[in-house]
């Protein structure tokens, strides 16, 4: 099989299908979910049945429906956070590589400081001080993730700005914005796309961890992390309820990682001219 003119490996096909099915299910949640996400349909922790394929949760809500709606929240949040962190990280990373040395030093040391604090602790502190709301949640994680993106984009850009075509653009009198957008960005794209997939997985896990700790998405809104939290006690008497959202997180993470591996393998290979 081929995609974008490149051969697909078995793992790439698996990864792409997992990701595609996940995204489709999550996007279509309101239409394909059998029940509403807050709807009480039966006994607490009822076993799977013909009416509710995956059983019911700690309040008697349908787990399948909540997984679909919860995925909607989790994936959307993770995507939003990743996009935001890339916008911040790439802009600052390229600026650090392209402009004067002191800008680079100032930005890099700031990022080092942020990275020195464990991000989960940092996020907990910020969320408890500013209160839990979606904008604060997204903003906080995006800034923390942006430090990683900054490092990657800075080092990629460092290798590009020394090339003659960037010098040619500078000698022409081009401004910083043009150099970053037209000369550096297109050539930095392949490693950054791969990084995007990885950062998406980390954001997904991050949101899930915060929700699990009760500081992320607030009830009654479903979310994979809080679903694990809500149903955690079921594990004591052999219920599968907390394992299902956890499995959903794991599956999507694996799927995206397989796609990323494939993307990396394409760009790792030299193509075009032979030497």
């Amino acid at each position, binding site marked *: 099989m081929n995609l974008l003119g490149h051969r697909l490996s078995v793992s790439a096909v698996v990864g792409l299908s997992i990701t595609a099915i996940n995204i489709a299910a999550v996007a279509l949640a309101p239409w394909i979910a059998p029940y509403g996400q807050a709807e009480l349909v039966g006994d607490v922790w009822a076993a799977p049945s013909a009416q509710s394929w995956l059983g019911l949760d700690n309040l008697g809500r349908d787990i399948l429906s909540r997984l679909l709606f919860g995925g909607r929240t989790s994936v959307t949040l993770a995507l939003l956070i990743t996009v935001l962190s890339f916008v911040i990280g790439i802009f600052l990373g390229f600026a650090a590589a392209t402009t004067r040395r002191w800008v680079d030093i100032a930005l890099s040391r700031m990022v080092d400081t942020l990275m020195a604090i464990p991000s989960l602790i940092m996020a907990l502190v910020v969320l408890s001080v500013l209160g839990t709301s979606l904008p604060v949640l997204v903003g906080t994680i995006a800034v923390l993730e942006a430090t990683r993106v900054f490092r990657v984009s800075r080092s990629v850009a460092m290798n590009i700005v020394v090339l003659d*075509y960037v010098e040619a653009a500078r000698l022409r*009198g081009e401004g910083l914005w043009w150099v970053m957008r*037209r000369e550096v960005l*297109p050539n930095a794209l392949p490693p950054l796309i791969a990084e995007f997939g990885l950062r998406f997985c980390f954001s997904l896990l991050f949101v899930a961890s915060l929700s699990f700790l009760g500081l992320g998405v607030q009830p009654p809104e479903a979310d994979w992390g809080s679903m694990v939290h809500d149903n955690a006690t079921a594990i004591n008497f052999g219920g599968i309820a907390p394992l299902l959202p956890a499995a959903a997180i794991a599956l999507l993470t694996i799927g995206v990682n397989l796609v990323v591996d494939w993307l990396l393998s394409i760009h790792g290979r030299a193509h075009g001219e032979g030497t």
Partner: protein
Amino acid sequence: MSDEILRIAGLRIVATTENGEVKTLVEGIDLSLHRGEVLGLIGESGAGKSTIGLAALAYTRPACAIAGGRILFAGEDVRAMDRAGRRKLRGRRIAYVAQSAAASFNPAKSLTQQVCEMPLRHRLMNRAAAKRQAIELFRELDLPSPETFGKRYPHQVSGGQLQRAMVAMAMSCHPDILILDEPTTALDVTTQIEVLAAIRELIRVRRTAALYISHDLAVVAQVAQRIMVLRHGRMVELGAARQILHEPQEDYTSRLVAVRAGTPVPPHEAAASRGEAVLELNGVSGAYGAVRVVKDVTIAVHRGETVALVGESGSGKSTVARLICGLRPPVTGTIRFRGAVLPAQLSARSREQLRRIQMIYQMPDMALNPRQRVAEILGRPVSFYFGLSPDRTRRRVEELLHLIDLPANFLTRRPGELSGGQKQRICIARALAAEPDLIICDEVTSALDPLVADEILGLLGRLKRETGIGYLFITHDLGTVRRIADRVAVMLQGAVVAEGPIATVFAPPYHPYTEALVSSVPEMRVDWLDDTLRRWNERGKAERL
């Protein structure tokens, strides 16, 4: 014949590309090499020279494979050997000397350690004997203080010395065959001559057979008895060195010879007719940190004039270009452009000032953004400097393509879809798009094959006549200088030691360094190296007396 050491017959080497296509790199090559004989392999890049050289070791680069033919080493079929058999052959019976010594040595080990490695690995001698031999080889290769030379690390010796140390490494197992792959190409001319003389003497004394791979016909002719001319993986011509040089049979060979010999230069007009001064450097010095790399340089480029800046690597000629462009502010001195002083900093220069000075680089691969199409590469300076509408920009870009003899359908191509020469043409067009008064050409032909380089020089010459642009032509190649320059400035260790019209600088009485430079350029005759070395020897004696 009994002393035949290597025979290759019907060699065919193929490469498998990423999407499964099989390309033939080398086809139908027959050659034989006798003890004590040096065979030169010559051709442009992609001719298969190195591929054939490596095949003698039954080795191919990744994704390549020997698909047919026989390789006999001393009568034994190398292709039929198992891994252990080949391992015994490589290094010990057939040794390889690569182009870049700096990339081939381990920077963390001393030279002696690395020169002794092969005899020790092959269990040919003990450590003490290997060391003695290394010292002996250093002495034969004319390296300074051979007893202690090997204690140094690769970064502590010069490029020419390192290249000779690599020859010592290759010779450490007394191989029967030496494969020399462009061993002097990365060196300056004055260094090249020393290395060339040392290599030739060593293989003559030891009666080692050698394959000498190079793109420079004049260099090969000094070392090889026979020369094989290759093109696109096939043999064009095989003959005695003298015959190839003076009576080439094939059209391709004669073109190579003609380009290398250089066409006779039409007499340049006298210096009196110089036009208006475009660029004037007055006592300009530049430094990296505390190190002065450009000292008190005074040169001028006038309208419609080509001024060559010549020097060996490290002479500071590229730094001069950076000073002029404003990439590095000068420490002292002034740079005037059309009479007005140019601000030292790039950021302080106006767009108009930037437009009038353009630059063309050595490596067209790196000078073009691989993600932009030709239309954008050329269109951007047009719209940036002149603010033309998209429609008129496009027409101007088509005009530019026409000017550099490329068809208009190149507009949609990316640099990856162009050949080296075409890329350099695009770089020239990009410079022309700004309608400059001065173009700085930094070694613009040194990464190109000779025939392609010749076309590029022709194009630059034509554009100068048509537009009256001035060129500052930075190069280490004196052949290029003679071909296109009106005036020349010779740089040595950051300072200009000689300056003036070509006819004056390159004719007696020479500045001593200019003479060394001029006499080091290999000439197209087989006894050039002997003559030059003899002249240098006599001079040396005369000076000592």
